């Protein structure tokens, strides 16, 4: 074979394999990992949670028919928002805890990291997938809750209007206003956002724990403890800062809890919002910022630990 014969082949080869410049950071790579994570999680049938939520709503609505409309709306809001909080927290912990061990077990992780994908992008893509799933789930649950509340409100409004058909118009208007006031309250929206931010925080923390955990069971057990201790953090912090605790061991324990754990009580605002307490923009913004701060820090720590992990 002469040089003349091989020339076009070489030319063709060179044209198709010019190495494109590899970027250190790529949104499209993260997006690919995110969408893949979301698809994987969807295949785990996590959306069945919504079915349970729906049944809970319908069941409680039927059960509450014996109460007055104020009691009914109060319980409906409490149960629905409590269920949203519980399901999102559970989903955040369980879905994230399974993520890394599953990828290692299926060897998907090695396939991805063998390509020019930095570990940072892998972790960010994974967490973004879970956060997207949480956002969709929260949105769907919130929509179902608002729909049920609206339907119950309309039913009570119609029943009241027909019962008071012979009453003076101002009395009817007062009664209808009272019903509307006890149903949907716009403050519930920031309350649901705070629930979502709490779930994001738990996701990032679970991811961080799973980077050094040996199994998903260990991560879940650890996170259950963290969840309870996190809700006690505010009490521990106050006791530590105000020097209520006596003895070196007690004070050291309080200090560890106060320093190392997030204050999860800060994100439990929805109980008081349902009770009629208005949330100011300043308080909402500060609470949300605290949640975002935790989420970012725990994600960065997860990335840092993941870089040192032997795979």
């Amino acid at each position, binding site marked *: 074979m002469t040089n003349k014969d091989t020339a076009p082949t070489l030319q063709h080869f060179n044209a198709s394999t010019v190495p494109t410049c590899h970027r250190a950071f790529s949104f499209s790579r993260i997006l690919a990992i995110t969408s893949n994570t979301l698809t994987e999680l969807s295949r785990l049938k996590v959306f069945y949670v919504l079915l349970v939520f729906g049944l809970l709503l319908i069941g409680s609505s039927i059960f509450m028919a*014996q*109460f007055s409309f*104020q*009691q009914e709306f*109060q*319980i409906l809001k*409490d*149960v629905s*928002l*409590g269920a949203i*909080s*519980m399901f999102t927290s559970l989903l955040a912990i369980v879905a994230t805890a399974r993520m890394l061990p599953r990828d290692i077990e299926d060897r998907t992780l090695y396939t991805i990291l063998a390509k020019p994908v930095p570990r940072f992008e892998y972790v960010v893509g994974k967490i973004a997938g879970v956060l997207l799933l949480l956002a969709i789930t929260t949105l769907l649950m919130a929509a179902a809750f608002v729909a049920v509340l609206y339907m119950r409100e309309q039913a009570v409004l119609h029943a009241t209007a027909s019962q008071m058909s012979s009453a*003076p118009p101002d009395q009817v208007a007062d009664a209808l206003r009272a019903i509307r006031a006890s149903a949907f309250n716009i403050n519930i929206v920031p309350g649901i956002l705070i629930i979502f931010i709490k779930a994001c925080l738990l996701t990032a923390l679970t991811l961080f724990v799973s980077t*050094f955990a040996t199994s998903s069971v260990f991560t879940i057990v650890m996170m259950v403890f963290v*969840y*309870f201790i996190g*809700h*006690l*953090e*505010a*009490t521990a*912090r*106050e006791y530590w*800062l105000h020097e209520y605790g006596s003895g070196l061991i007690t004070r050291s324990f309080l200090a560890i809890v*106060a*320093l*190392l754990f*997030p*204050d*999860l*009580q*800060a*994100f*439990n*605002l*929805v*109980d*008081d919002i*349902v*009770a*009629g*307490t*208005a*949330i*100011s923009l*300043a*308080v909402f913004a*500060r*609470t949300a910022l*605290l949640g975002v*701060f935790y989420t970012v*820090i725990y994600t960065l*720590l997860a990335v*840092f*630990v993941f870089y*040192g992990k032997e795979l």
Partner: protein
Amino acid sequence: MTRALIVAAVLVVMGLLKLPVESDLAARHRAEHFRGIEFNLDLREKLGQLGFMAALSGFRSIVADALFIQAHAAWEDTEWGRMLLLFRHITTLQPRVLLFWDTAAWHMAWNASVAAMNDANEPRQALRVKAQREYFALGKDFLERGIKNNPDRPELYEALARLYKEKYKDHERAGEYYAKAATLPEAAPWDRRFSAYELSYCEGREREAYERLRSLYDEGEKERLPTLIKRMKFLEDKLGLPQEQRIIETEPPKR
């Protein structure tokens, strides 16, 4: 190992940075009536271990609702003692829910008190009356504690005014609480009127009551309700006001 130490150091530094932020946020939350309950041994004893853990994990509203449903069942079985206990737990868990304070007070002062008065197992009337008054006091206690926890909401002031009026027949205190409710931002339009009505029943305060009713009357047609005119006419007669100072209405306007 180095990586683990770095992570530990970052967590501690982050902890030190977040402490003042969290303390400040907690103070702001309390100032705006969030985080209204203290998680302590007293609450733990009241709720039991499971209830306490659930409340601690951010599900105190659900625990309170479960207890409320139990209280409803206890009401159907007329177990007043159990109801009292349950409502104490409910209001401890959800001190900002007016509905719970109001329902607890209503059950005690209206339902349990009537049941005590009609108790067929207690032949002595003196003891039945004593029990009845104890339930009035329990209802009053719920409302007073509810007001302490929610001083900015008019509903419980109105409920306490009703209790003083209907159960204690204390028109002066009833008027006082209606007047307090009327000063709050979301007060019902009738609070001022009701306060003046109650005052009109108080011996020795007829002049003051008449002046308040008169000022309402002078506000226009909207306030000139049959009861208001009736009470004004009664006070005009009682105070012996000259004809030229009296209102000219002879019969209540048709509405």
